[in-house]
């Protein structure tokens, strides 16, 4: 009975010690075994692992890709146009021992802080380099610039036990005060375009009108010419007809046509005649016999 009295607490204690001497490393992590702050073992592969209970403790670090957004900074490329830039980095903890030594117990927040300043410095350096203009930042070269930032940050990152997977520029914008100027320029460009549109519209309209007017004149004069030709032909035909008819007896034609002309031209309202009665018409007015 006495034995049994201590059996259960002993069992509990043994169980506790047993459990605290095993630990599981997850697929997502890497672990350090620390003994009074000293690194005793590194466990990078997932699975079961052992430690000395009570004396040693396990520190786990994330083995996945971590993300970091840098603060927005203003850079001045070589053409003196200021740009607001931020970037993001994807990184992972490559060497837990180095990482621990570099950042101490602060862990990831400290690492992010340091990596952030490293990246900012490199962004400034790369984007501020001599041959880099704001045009090249705003061009397909952008990817190369990001790769250069990544390459140049690598050494510093390795010092932190970190591996930089990727660096990408996110925002590359104009500062607030330049923004207004850019908007103004865009507006001016649009206004010019609008004015140009209207002017071109007027030009085209005028062209169309002028062409129409010309065509009108051409059409009308054409018709006039043709009409005159027709009239001429008509007159010619009339002359031919008259000549054909009157030519058979010109003397009679003269007589006949004269009579017609007298009748037409000497009319009551518009003519008065002063004459001596010795015309042929009055032959019999003077005497009953003609001749004398």
């Amino acid at each position, binding site marked *: 009975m006495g034995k049994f009295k201590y059996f259960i607490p002993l069992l509990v204690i043994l169980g506790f010690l047993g459990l605290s001497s095993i630990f599981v490393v997850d697929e997502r992590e890497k672990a350090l075994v620390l003994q009074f702050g000293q690194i005793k073992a590194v466990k990078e592969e997932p699975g079961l692992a052992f430690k000395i209970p009570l004396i040693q403790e396990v520190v786990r670090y994330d083995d996945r890709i971590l993300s970091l957004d840098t603060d927005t900074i203003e850079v001045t490329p070589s053409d003196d146009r200021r740009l607001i830039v931020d970037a993001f980095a994807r990184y992972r903890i490559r060497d837990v021992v180095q990482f621990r030594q570099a950042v101490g117990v602060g862990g990831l927040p400290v690492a992010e802080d340091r990596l952030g300043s490293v990246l900012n410095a490199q962004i400034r350096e790369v984007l501020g380099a001599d041959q880099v203009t704001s045009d090249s930042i705003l061009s397909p070269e952008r990817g190369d610039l990001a790769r250069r930032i990544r390459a140049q940050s690598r050494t510093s990152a390795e010092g932190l036990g970190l591996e930089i997977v990727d660096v990408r520029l996110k925002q590359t914008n104009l500062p607030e005060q330049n923004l207004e100027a850019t908007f103004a320029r865009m507006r001016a460009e649009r206004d010019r375009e609008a004015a140009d549109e209207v002017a071109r519209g007027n030009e085209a309209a005028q062209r169309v*009108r002028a062409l129409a007017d010309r065509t009108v004149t051409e059409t009308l004069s054409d018709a006039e010419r043709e009409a005159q030709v*027709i009239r001429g032909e008509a007159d010619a035909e009339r002359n031919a007809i008259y000549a054909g008819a009157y030519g058979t007896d010109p003397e009679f034609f003269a007589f006949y046509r004269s009579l017609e002309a007298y009748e037409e031209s000497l009319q009551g309202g518009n003519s008065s005649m002063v004459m001596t009665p010795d015309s042929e018409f009055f032959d019999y007015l003077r005497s009953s016999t003609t001749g004398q």
Partner: protein
Amino acid sequence: MAGNSGGPWGGGGHDGGEGRDDRNDRPDDQRGQRPNGGRGGNDPQIPEIDELVKKGQEQLRVLMGGRGGGRGDGGGGGAGGDGPGLSRGTIGLGLLVVFGLWLFQSFYTVKPEEQSVELFLGEFYQVGNPGLNFAPWPIITAQTVNVTSERTEDIGQRQGRGNEGLMLTTDANIVDINFQVVWNIADPSRLLFNIRDPQLTVQAVSESIMREIIARSTLAPILNRDRGIIADTAMQNIQETLDDYESGIRIVRVNLDKADPPEEVIDSFREVQAAEQERDRLQRQADAYANRVLAEARGEAAQTLEQSEGYRARVVNEARGDASRFTSVLTEYSKAPEVTRKRLYLETMQRVMGEIDKTILDNSVVGAEGSGGIVPYLPLNELRRNSTTGQGN
């Protein structure tokens, strides 16, 4: 499931638990599914549990009954003499409850839209498919991930002061972009093991890539004809980048919601559109004018031509008529020239003389030729007036 995964991490340090937030909602799901959760090959397991529970209840009854009688010999039959009432039955019941809890912990369901990732002592073991799954705790832990349902990230929403959607083009113009990235999970194990914040990663990568695409394009094509191309390129590049991270994320599609000039200048862009319409209007007006004038001219030309044709017809007809009249008269005249000639003359003179005012002066009055005579002094106008007034009266 939180309890389930709590095993490996429970004794651990500070850094292990980042992923736990994602899994918090799972126990509810599991319990919700449990009553009707029998699916697939694991079906027979459920009745077993029920049987066990029933057995447990029976034993409880026995225990209650047996307790009164068995108090005498105390814990003699039990394993420990420590606590009061620790009989064999109590321990059996305790073990049973523990076993039940263990079973409860070890079974979990995976819904049709999910997959689970099982870890054997923290090491990747297998992917669990929809249905009831067994992961003996604490050796194997499992985590379910919703793989098919689509997640949407909205990028470029411009709220208040934010310039988030404003992107700079290569010709230094600014365009306001707003787009959505829809994604799901292609490979849950990769997602879990390689990426800490999938959502943030998708957002950051998408924004970066969209800005990169915009930064190498000029403004005009972004606003209209390149929209589809931009969305396609973005989708492709985002997917490539995420594949580089071995993220297990699949981009389903990229919707380019908005690609407009910023609000500050959009009025000017509208004015350009208005001007384009104005240009169109001017051209159409001119066309209308041209059409009208040309039609009028054609009409007028036709009229002129027809008039001249009419003139031709009239003139020719007149000539023919005159000619044939003359010919007829001539025919008659040639039969009796003297008489006809006289008759025609007289008839005509009769008509002429009948009409006009006449003043007949005798030769003697007129005087000899060249001597002046009376004619110059005749008040011709007077004579004429008389005749007209006379007619008027």
